[in-house]
């Protein structure tokens, strides 16, 4: 993390509307070529944060910097590098998909020859090559959403800010879109996305941040967060055996690094400071108790999310 270039940085970013604070002293750092997921319930301030990053909304206080440019003072420089997919994406209904993208390319001063190639390429990437010359008015919501993603990619952004990129897509579309997003860092695009669908975030994001009432509740990589949230910084290992014995529990507890052993029938839940699966397996086998399975607990974003919002 530390050696990576930080491309998005906010300092005490705050936005209030009529006295209601929507984003509250947010400090966000996103590294280059990272996929960062913003999570949070409706009204947590995800969209507002994104708008402030782009300089489309003026912060009440604090600063946002994208690639070193102040979003409020130099919005044009930020917009040259950033592609934004709004929550409710709109196109000119009387133009075709291709014409809509062409217009965006022209606004970005991309030459005609270059834009033709880029448009072809991006339409292909989002699976819309066949409907390129259909007017957008005839598109379904899902198709518009795909076109929205093409719209972001056509300018080859250094950073893509996607507000619920998979909303309204069919399951196949979601998988395609997620794969596309996951492939972006390889081509030098950092991604910031927001979503309600937790498994999506889990699938593509390197790091996530959970927002609640404008504040960052927790931030980090998925493993870090899971351990922080659910096991108080420890690894949880589950061991299933055919039977248990007090002696086994005692031996397990003697392994250095094991903090706690709990039993639920034939299931042993072990909290440890590190991944001690090898040692535990050895001890179990030595104690002549057949081992059925052992797994290290993986945290799903759902667990983390629910934990925070039930407590919060």
């Amino acid at each position: 993390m530390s050696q990576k270039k930080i491309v998005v940085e906010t300092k005490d970013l705050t936005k209030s509307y009529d006295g209601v604070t929507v984003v509250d002293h947010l400090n966000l750092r996103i590294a280059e070529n990272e996929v960062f997921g913003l999570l949070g319930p409706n009204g947590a301030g995800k969209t507002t944060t994104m708008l402030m990053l782009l300089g489309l909304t003026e912060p009440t206080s604090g600063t946002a910097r994208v690639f070193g440019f102040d979003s409020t003072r130099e919005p044009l420089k930020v917009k040259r590098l950033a592609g934004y997919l709004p929550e409710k994406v709109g196109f000119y209904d009387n133009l075709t998909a291709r014409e809509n993208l062409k217009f965006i390319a022209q606004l970005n001063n991309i030459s005609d020859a270059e834009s033709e190639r880029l448009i072809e390429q991006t339409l292909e990437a989002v699976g819309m090559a066949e409907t390129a010359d259909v007017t957008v008015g005839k598109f379904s919501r899902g198709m518009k959403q795909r076109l929205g993603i093409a719209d972001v990619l056509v300018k080859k952004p250094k950073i893509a800010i996607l507000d619920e990129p998979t909303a309204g897509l069919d399951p196949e579309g979601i998988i395609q879109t997620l794969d596309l997003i996951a492939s972006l860092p390889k081509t030098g695009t950092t991604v910031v996305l927001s979503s309600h669908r937790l498994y999506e975030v889990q699938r593509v994001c390197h790091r996530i941040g959970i927002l609640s009432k404008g504040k960052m509740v927790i931030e980090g990589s998925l493993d870090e967060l899971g351990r922080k949230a659910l096991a108080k910084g420890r690894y949880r290992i589950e061991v299933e055996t055919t039977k248990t014995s007090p002696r086994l529990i005692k031996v397990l507890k003697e392994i250095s690094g094991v903090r706690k052993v709990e039993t639920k029938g034939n299931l042993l839940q072990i909290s440890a400071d590190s991944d001690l699966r090898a040692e535990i397996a050895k001890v179990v086998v030595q104690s002549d108790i057949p081992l059925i399975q052992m797994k290290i607990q993986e945290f799903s974003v759902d667990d983390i999310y629910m934990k925070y919002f039930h407590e919060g």
Partner: protein
Amino acid sequence: MITILRKELADYFTSIRCFILFSLALLASAGGLLAAYQGIRGAGSESGFVFLNLFTTSAEKLPPLAIFIIPFFVPIIGIALGFDAINSERSSGTLNRILSQPVYRDSVINGKFLAGIVTLAILMATTILIVSGYGLRMIGVPPTSEEIIRLFLYFVFIIIYGGFWMGLAILFSVLFRSVAISLLSPLALWIFFGNPVFNPYISFIVPAVGKSVEAILLLTRFSPYFLFSEATMVLLFPQWRGTELLVVPETTLSYMLLNPLSLGQSILIVWPQLTALIALTLICFAVSYVVFMRQEIRPT
């Protein structure tokens, strides 16, 4: 800005709205021609500006093109071209897509305004040229170079006057999110302050407030309609010696000479009207810019 201008123009020319406006322009020129056809024989040609009479003569029950029809239509066209400029894009979500591209916010307004002006110019040039063309065939007197210049200046005034109403409509489209409201508000203003039909009411109210001729003039000159009418009179009736004549009582008129003024003198008289109209348009713009710059662009 050029990109936005090009796109807006392409939009206008393929839209039904533009088709309707062109039909209006055609009807207007037909009406003007009809009035000229019936009235031009009786029109005084002693001033020597026969060709201009095509635009200014009225027949029984038929109003002249330049005095009535054009002042009536130009604001409608201006409003029709501008009333949904910003808010329709906002509600369809295209506005925040454009503004997340590297473009200045004012270039969105400017591009739209310029596209509107170009459309308006084409519409009005069509109208004037149709009347000129058919009129030429009808009366057989070619325009003098002075008449052509006067007509051209009149055309410039039309564009600026239309531009004012378009600017006003764009301002309302920035202020209000609902397209219906941004259409009705400038229309309401137009009905009371910019409409030859309602003008008698204005001329009734204004003298009640201002007592002297100067005071009346001052008040009425805030109205773009009045400024435009004055300019029209001076440009198309070369014998009009001053803009005050519109409010001066009939009795004083009889003392005046009716020799036509030279082109230079006429231009000198309408110069303040030109400046005032441009200033009014710019005020609309300044307010639109200021409001738009600070506005949230999120679709609601």
